[in-house]
C-alpha cells in the first residue's frame, strides 16, 4: 500500500498494536533539558525505576542559562533547575552537555549538529519545538513531563496515528526571502490552529531547494500553527549535511543507512487527509505585527484594521493585539521603531542564520539607541562563527556577541525585554510577555533582523542599499 513518509516512519516503530488501544511506539532518541525533566526523574526514583536506554537519551542546559558568562547562574530558582538536571543525569547515567561544554546549546540545535538527528527516526523531547528535527525526515514531537518519565522508563510511548497533511510549496523563493519568511507567511495563511491534529509534510520545489538550516527553521515552527510534527523528505542535501558528523553512521553502516533513508520519501500515489499550497515566488520578507505567529504580514504592508478580519474572534484577537503592541492601524510596518534586535533561538540560531545577519551588518553600525543581541544556538555554532570571524563583524557593528542558550526567546533567563520595549526577534513566539513582561515582539528573519538593527525600524536588507544610494 502507498504510504507517506510519516506513515513509513511510524510503521517502522510500532512495538505493539492492539484493537482499541493506541500503538506503542519505540523512541529512537530522547532529548532532555532542565525545565521539563525534574519531576520525571523524581517519578522514576519514587517507583524505583531506571532509565531504560541511556544510550538513546541525551541532555543539555539551555532555557535557564545565562549568555553573558559561563560560570554564574544568578537566579536561585534557575540555578536549582540546572543543578537538579546535573544531579539527575549523574544519578541515572544520562549524558549531559552542561554550560561550558563544547556541545552545549539549545536542545534542538545540539541534536542535529552532532548528527544525532537522522532520517527515519522517532525523536521526542519535553519541548514543543521538537518538531525541528522533522527537517531530516524524522518523526519528532514534543511531550509532557509524565510522558518524559514514560519514555525514560520504557523507551516507548503509547500514541495514536494523527492525520496526514501535505504542504506543497511551489515556485522559487525570490532573492532576500528566506525559510523564515516562508513559514511565517504559511502560518498567517493557515492560522495558528490550521495544523491541529495533523502531522505535516512540507514538500515541493521551494522546500527541496532549502538548506538543512532553512528546513529546520520551517519544521521548527510547525507547532506554531498547531501541527504535531513537520517532516521534510530526506534527500542529497540531508545526506551531505549529516555525513561525517559525530554520531552519523560510518563506513558500511553509512551506506546501509543511506539505502534505507532513500526508501522513506512519500510514495507517489500516497493520499493525504488534507493538502495545502503556497507559492514561494509570490513571497516577500514577512513579519508579525500581533501577539500570535498567525498575525503576520508582508513587510511592505501596513498595520491592519482589526475590523477588517472575517470572523469576530479574529477581530477581537486583532483588537487586543493592536492594543498590547501599541500600534495604530494603517501605519506602515517599516515605520515601527525597535529598541532591541535578537538574533538567535532554535528557529534561527544556526551558523547560516548568523552568516546571513553578518553579511547585512558587515561595514555597518547598529543604530543609536538600539540594542542588538546575537546569541548562537549552541557553543559549537559559536565556535564555528568565530572561526569565520563573524563575531568581529557583530562586535564592530556594535552588537553583543553572546554565549549559547535560549536567551531572549523566552523570559526564563536574564535576557529579557523591559516592559514596553519593542523587539525584532528571529525567535518563534510573539506571545504577550514571552520575551519579558510587557515586551512587544515582532518575529522576523535573520536578514530583516540585521537590517532593522541598522536602521532602527523594521527593514529589509534591500532598504539599506536604497539608503546607501541616496
Amino acid at each position, binding site marked *: 500500500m502507498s504510504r507517506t513518509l510519516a506513515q513509513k516512519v511510524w510503521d517502522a516503530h510500532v*512495538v*505493539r498494536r492492539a484493537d482499541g488501544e493506541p500503538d*506503542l511506539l*519505540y523512541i*529512537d*532518541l530522547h532529548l532532555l533539558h532542565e525545565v521539563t525533566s*525534574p*519531576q520525571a526523574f*523524581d*517519578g522514576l526514583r*519514587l*517507583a524505583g*525505576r531506571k532509565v*531504560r536506554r*541511556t*544510550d*538513546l*537519551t*541525551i541532555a543539555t542546559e539551555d532555557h535557564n542559562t545565562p549568555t553573558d558568562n559561563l560560570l554564574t547562574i544568578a537566579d536561585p*530558582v534557575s540555578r*536549582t*533547575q540546572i543543578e*537538579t538536571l546535573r544531579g539527575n543525569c549523574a544519578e541515572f547515567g544520562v*549524558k549531559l552537555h552542561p554550560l561550558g561544554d563544547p556541545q552545549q546549546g539549545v536542545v534542538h540545535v545540539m541534536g542535529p549538529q552532532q*548528527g*544525532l538527528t*537522522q532520517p527515519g*527516526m522517532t525523536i521526542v523531547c519535553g519541548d514543543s519545538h521538537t518538531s525541528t528535527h522533522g527537517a531530516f525526515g524524522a518523526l519528532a514531537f514534543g511531550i509532557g*513531563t*509524565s510522558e518524559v*518519565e*514514560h519514555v525514560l*522508563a*520504557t*523507551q*516507548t510511548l*503509547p500514541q495514536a496515528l494523527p492525520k496526514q497533511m501535505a504542504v506543497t510549496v511551489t515556485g522559487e523563493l525570490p532573492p532576500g526571502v528566506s525559510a523564515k519568511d516562508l513559514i511565517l507567511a504559511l502560518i498567517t495563511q493557515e492560522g495558528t490552529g490550521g495544523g491541529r491534529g495533523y502531522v505535516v509534510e512540507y514538500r515541493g520545489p521551494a522546500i527541496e531547494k532549502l538548506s538543512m538550516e532553512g528546513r529546520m527553521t520551517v519544521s521548527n515552527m510547525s507547532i506554531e500553527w498547531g501541527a504535531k510534527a513537520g517532516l521534510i523528505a530526506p534527500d542529497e542535501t540531508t545526506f551531505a549535511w549529516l555525513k561525517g558528523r559525530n*554520531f552519523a*553512521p560510518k563506513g558500511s*553502516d*553509512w551506506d*546501509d*543507512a543511506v539505502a*534505507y533513508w532513500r526508501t522513506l520519501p512519500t510514495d507517489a500515489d500516497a493520499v493525504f487527509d488534507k493538502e495545502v499550497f503556497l507559492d514561494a515566488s509570490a513571497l516577500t520578507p514577512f513579519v508579525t505585527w500581533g501577539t500570535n505567529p498567525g498575525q503576520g504580514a508582508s513587510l511592505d504592508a501596513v498595520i491592519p484594521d482589526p475590523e477588517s478580519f472575517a470572523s469576530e474572534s479574529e477581530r477581537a484577537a486583532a483588537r487586543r493585539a493592536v492594543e498590547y503592541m501599541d500600534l495604530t492601524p494603517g501605519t506602515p510596518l517599516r515605520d515601527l521603531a525597535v529598541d532591541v534586535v535578537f538574533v538567535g533561538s532554535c528557529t534561527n540560531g544556526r551558523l547560516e542564520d548568523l552568516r546571513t545577519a553578518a553579511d547585512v551588518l558587515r561595514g555597518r553600525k547598529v543604530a543609536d539607541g538600539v540594542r542588538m543581541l546575537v546569541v548562537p544556538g549552541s557553543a559549537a555554532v559559536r565556535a564555528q562563527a568565530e572561526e569565520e570571524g563573524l563575531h568581529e563583524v557583530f562586535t564592530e557593528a556594535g552588537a553583543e556577541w553572546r554565549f549559547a542558550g535560549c536567551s531572549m526567546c523566552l523570559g526564563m533567563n536574564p535576557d529579557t525585554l523591559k516592559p514596553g520595549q519593542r523587539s525584532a526577534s528571529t525567535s518563534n513566539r510573539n506571545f504577550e510577555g514571552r520575551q519579558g513582561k510587557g515586551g512587544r515582539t515582532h518575529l522576523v528573519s535573520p536578514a530583516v533582523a540585521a537590517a532593522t538593527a541598522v536602521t532602527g525600524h523594521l527593514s529589509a536588507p534591500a532598504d539599506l542599499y536604497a539608503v546607501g544610494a541616496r
Partner: protein
Amino acid sequence: MEKFTVHTGTAVPLRRSNVDTDQIIPAVYLKRVTRTGFEDGLFSAWREDPSFVLNNPVYDGASVLLAGPEFGTGSSREHAVWALNDYGFRVVISPRYGDIFRGNSLKQGLLTVELPQAAVETLWDLVEADPATAIEVDLVAREVRAGGQSWAFDLDDFLRWRLMEGLDDIGLTLRHEEAITAFEGHRPAFGVLVG
C-alpha cells in the same frame, strides 16, 4: 503505584464546594523540581486559619477526604493530586469532580469516588459525631461502607482494573516489556548510540 483493593481509614469532613486546584495547591508551589513533598502546599492558604478542619488534631492520620461537589475544578496542574497523595490521602469522596483532576487522580492511584450528595452528607455527620469512624472503601465491590450503612459507586472497568493492579501508564507499558525487548533486537545497526 500501590495496588488498590479495599482501603479502610478515618476521614476528614471538608464541608466546602467548588474547591478548585488553585485552592488545593497554589501556583507558587509549581516552581519546584521534585515530585514529592507537596504536602505542605496542600490547602496551604486555608491551613493558615487555625480553625480549618485539617488543623483539628482529631482528624490527624485521616486518609479519606470527604469533600463537597465540584472538587478539583480549574487548572490542570498534576501537583494537586501529588499534594493530596503526599499528605496521606488515598481516597476522596465527593458528589462531583473537575474532569482533568479526576483523570489525573485515577492515573496516580488516588481513588476519587463519586457518591450522591445525600451520602456525603451522611458521612460528614458520622465523622463529625465520631472522628474515629472507620470508612471502608471497597474497590473490588465498588462500595463504600461506614456506620453500618453502604453505598455503591460507579467506576469504569478499565480504570478499576488498572487501580486494582496498581498500574500507572508506565506499569501498563511494562507489561509489554518482552515486546519492547524483541523490538530492540531488530533495530538497525546504524541506530544512534549516544555512548
